[in-house]
């Protein structure tokens, strides 16, 4: 199992991916969320097992990353081979979020890093990571998501905004109750979750 334990290690993998894409004459812009994105922005300091790509950015518009294009897979797999890591080190696991809808202004808030002419990686901003982590906490339970969310030190207003966005993905009453419970657990008792 791969453990990306440092920003330096993550940058090395992405730089290698960039070189492989360059050699193949390909160019991609990846939108990354999750633990690796938090490591890249220096927001957390825990190991993560993969790099979650939520979308590909094409002319400023996010489009689904699932399935990865063939040449991106080829480049990713060569990096995996070269570093002795699983091929799923870079995966489109959370790509479904694009269909359900990313938080408003998500693309405008990303923090971008260029790895040369063939690869730009856009890391979700702190605010958007709060949105995604709150949703993941309610959807998948505590653990690393709670740990990450606490490391992001969200304000009550940020958590409320995140909760309202999460409800657009699951408007059921059951989910609303779980959200309210999660928010209370995080110290927000009076969140406005809308109608």
């Amino acid at each position, binding site marked *: 199992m791969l453990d990306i334990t440092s920003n330096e290690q993550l940058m*090395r993998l992405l*730089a290698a991916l960039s*070189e492989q894409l360059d050699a193949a004459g390909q160019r991609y812009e990846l939108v990354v969320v999750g633990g690796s994105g938090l490591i890249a922005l220096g927001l957390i300091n825990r190991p993560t097992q993969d790099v979650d790509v939520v979308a590909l950015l094409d002319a400023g518009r996010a489009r689904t990353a699932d399935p990865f294009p063939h040449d991106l897979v080829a480049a990713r797999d060569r990096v995996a081979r*070269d*570093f002795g890591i699983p091929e799923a080190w870079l995966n489109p696991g959370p790509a479904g979020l694009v269909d359900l809808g990313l938080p408003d202004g998500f693309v405008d808030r990303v923090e971008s890093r260029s790895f040369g002419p063939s690869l730009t990686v856009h890391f979700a901003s702190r605010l958007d990571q709060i949105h995604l982590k709150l949703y993941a906490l309610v959807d998948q339970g505590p653990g690393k998501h709670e740990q990450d969310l606490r490391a992001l030190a969200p304000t009550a207003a940020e958590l409320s905004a995140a909760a309202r966005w999460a409800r657009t993905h699951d408007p059921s009453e059951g989910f609303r109750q779980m959200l309210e419970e999660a928010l209370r657990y995080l110290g927000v008792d009076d969140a406005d979750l809308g109608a």
Partner: protein
Amino acid sequence: MRISELRSHLRAPLLEFAWDQWAQMGVFATSQRADRWAADPEALLLFTFEVARADARLFDEVLDWLVVNERLVSVQRLRNLCRDEMDRSLVDASLGWAAQSRPRARLLSPADSNKPRAGADEPLLRRSRMRVTRPDEAFRRHGWLKATTKPNGKSSAPNLLAPINFAFRLRQILGVGARAEAVRVLLTSDAPRMTAQEIAESAGYAKRNVQEALTALHSSGVIETVSVGNEQRFSIPLSPWAALLSLSADDLPQHRAWPQLFHALRVLMRWVEDEQHDSLSDYMLASEARTLADEITPELRYAGVHLDSAARAGADYWQDFIELASAAAAALA
């Protein structure tokens, strides 16, 4: 070690090896070596056509040897052992050159009846600063730019009693073909019994041809066969064959997996000599090297080259590759 240093590190021993082999096989050169193995003439020719692109004199002396000894060479086998277009064009160009002195249909390929092709030719000699003013037409037909040369006639026939020339000796007895190669493999291999497929891998002929040769030899009572499951395995009685050759069984030459080893070394040298690799980053150089290593490692292992399985990550793999390349070259010692 940078790739330019690796180039020199590999080129010198490979050229030295080729000179030493050919000197024992009739090329006009001296060698202090008296190898105990049986050479594989066609595999060695293919290997030499590649490594001698760094040594014009070796290339020309081997071409001269080919003209003098072409009756001992199997053109079919030479073509069978080609693995890619580069191999084929070097072989066809060299045979076409030999045909200028020995006009024989078997030496010619369809391209030899064509006019020289249009477009840029690749210099046969690597990094040569000599401008080719009179290009050889036989080589040009196959896309190579080589200065016109004539056979110097200095080569001689191989000494058939030297172990290294065992293949030629068997060809003189059994004829040039699958039968002689199958007997060579059986007499020199350490394996007590071999399948037709295993023999074919060294014999350099199609399995069907080798199977036919083995069946004929078996029906003549000069090789033996046992069935293991539904697979036939062949063996050869060493003492009677050795006696026929005025040798003791212990004096029979040694087998080496030359086609596999030489192919791996050809691919390795072609890659190392490619100057496009000089401009790669440390990581991409290591990555490309790893791709090459993945390709040639099975053949190197088949040829008995010991290679470590553990590999360093990323750009650090380059050191592993240097060790692999060194081990491959050392297999010739």
